[in-house]
């Protein structure tokens, strides 16, 4: 890209240190700690009300933490107002200024930084080019589609070469196809510019697809932070196992390094005390097998065609619902009787009484 958008190649380290935030009696963040490496793309993933947006807003300076510190590049910016934090932010709802043309929207942040009008517009043009909307510079926001508006918002957030890019569910208002293409585009631009980025989303697929690391949040704390592979293959808690990827929770018994589920032995990923456990099974951990093979009898409750594979919800003989992923060529219909077996891959188990 041109020199106008060459951000600091080293990026900025961003740290949240024991952030506590409450609204009245309701504590939203319970001593949140987060350390983001320079140039890293970290997603905050979690269900509604888990505090992920509040954490982002504290980072931005739009909310003030009750206690704790926000550090950019090792410097405490907790007391720095949002307009001096040098951030770029894209919001969930469309945030372009309706009275300004696209080019002026993008140049807005530059003008606030006293960049001369001509140069500001030139740099805004470069930023628009980056998001593929150079031809739309003279339009007004209402003349753009939702996806285009969010692209312009991204250009507007990036043009000032901020230290940190904050994305607050920027794709949630868009339709599925645009969402996927824009999310990939965001990731490509982020990699190209090397800007430290925090992305808030409740969509696990989105988070896993674009992030260097994902922080799964629950009830105001980070349950687990790790690479997408870590979270999927080695979930640390029940919430992570259930929230990241699909998991069916079934009853079993742990004996040594194995668990007995549906009368079959499966290896355990981590050792656990012998006794009743709840085992988390991914759809790909389960197989459809012939009638005489080891496994458990089941009845098809629903089945979805997903292109190259099908995902089928079955009710086993002991009345447990589990999801099975199988080739789309194995056609099944609701009510079909079939047999389900476990693949011999390590599974996550938790003591039964501790699972909520």
């Amino acid at each position, binding site marked *: 890209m041109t020199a106008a958008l060459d951000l600091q190649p080293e990026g900025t380290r961003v740290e949240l240190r024991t952030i506590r935030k409450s609204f009245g009696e309701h504590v939203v963040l319970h001593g949140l700690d987060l350390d983001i490496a320079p140039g890293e793309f970290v997603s905050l993933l979690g269900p509604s009300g888990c505090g992920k947006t509040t954490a982002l807003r504290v980072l*931005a300076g*739009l909310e003030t933490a009750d206690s704790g510190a926000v550090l950019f590049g090792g410097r405490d910016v907790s007391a720095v*107002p*949002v*307009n*001096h934090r*040098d*951030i*770029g*932010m894209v*919001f969930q*709802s*469309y*945030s*372009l*200024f*309706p*009275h300004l043309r696209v080019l002026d929207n993008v140049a*807005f*942040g530059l003008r*606030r*930084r006293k960049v001369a009008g001509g140069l500001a517009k030139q740099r805004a043009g470069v930023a628009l080019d980056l998001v593929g909307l150079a031809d739309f510079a*003279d339009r*007004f*926001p*209402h*003349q753009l589609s939702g996806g285009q508006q969010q692209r312009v*918002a991204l250009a*507007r*957030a990036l043009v*000032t070469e901020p230290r940190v890019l*904050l994305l607050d569910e920027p794709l949630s208002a868009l339709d599925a196809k645009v969402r996927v293409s824009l999310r990939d585009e965001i990731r490509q631009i982020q990699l190209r510019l090397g800007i430290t980025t925090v992305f808030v989303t409740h969509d696990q697929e989105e988070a896993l697809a674009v992030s260097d690391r994902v922080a799964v949040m629950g009830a105001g704390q980070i349950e687990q932070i790790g690479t997408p592979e870590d979270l999927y293959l080695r979930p640390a808690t029940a919430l992570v196992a259930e929230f990241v990827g699909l998991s069916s929770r079934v009853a079993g018994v742990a004996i040594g390094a194995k668990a007995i589920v549906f009368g079959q032995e499966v290896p355990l990923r981590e050792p656990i005390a012998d006794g009743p456990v709840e085992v988390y099974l991914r759809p790909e951990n389960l197989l459809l097998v012939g009638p005489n093979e080891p496994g458990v009898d089941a009845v098809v409750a629903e089945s979805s065609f997903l292109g190259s594979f099908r995902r089928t919800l079955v009710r086993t003989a002991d009345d447990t619902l589990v999801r099975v992923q199988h080739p789309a060529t194995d056609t099944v219909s609701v009510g079909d009787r079939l047999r389900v077996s476990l693949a011999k891959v390590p599974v996550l188990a938790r003591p039964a009484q501790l699972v909520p």
Partner: protein
Amino acid sequence: MAVVSASIAPSRATRAVIGVTVGLVFAVPMVSTFLYTLRDGTGYSLVNWARVFDPANSRVLAPIWTGLTNSLVLAVVTVGLVLVLLAPTMILVNLRFPGLRRLFEFLVLLPISIPAIVLVVGLAPIYLVIGRSVGTGAWTLAFAYGITVLPFAFRSIQASIDAIDLLTLTEAARSLGASWPSVIGLVLVPNLRTGLLAASLISTAVVLGEFTIASLLNRAVLQTSLLVVSKIDTYASAIFTLLSLAFAFGLLIVIGRAGRFNTGTDRP
């Protein structure tokens, strides 16, 4: 959608009947007044209109010009109060204290339910103090008018605030490095201009038409001077009534146009 709106919208004939009826209600007294101003004792002519604008009669008509000037000054000060006090307060309430919105709305709509004469009873002692501290100029009525226009100005501005995502626009501007004055001047005011303009014009119309408070507090404004002159020259008073009505209608038309002038939609 189109089917629903077609079924609930009045038919063309119904609209015509409503339009003509409302038009007559307004037109009959105005046309009658206009015809009255044309009477010259023997027939109809423009002699009364000529006399009003004849410099030779300036002494008789002086109260009207004084009243008109005072009213215009009052309108400017009142609009200033609306723009400098009410609008920023509304922005603050909507951004920072959304929980207070209902209470605030109740308070600013209150003046509409208080008769002017009751308001004056409360205002009279306050105006004694105002008279001693800042003087007895007619412009001081703007403090009272600032209260009477609250409900009208509030509704106009609130409609504009509700039409935009005030919080997101503000936070977006702040995140881009804008100071609070920049947020208000460069982002909020341009997007609220329809409401601010409507609030200003409707406040002007209310101020120009106000009689009770000015009369009871003994200040000379357009309406009180029209009454004074009508006792000397009924034609002049009728002519100025017509002119002020025309002015108010003109303002209402501008407000109507402003309402349709949505952000950006009229531009390529």
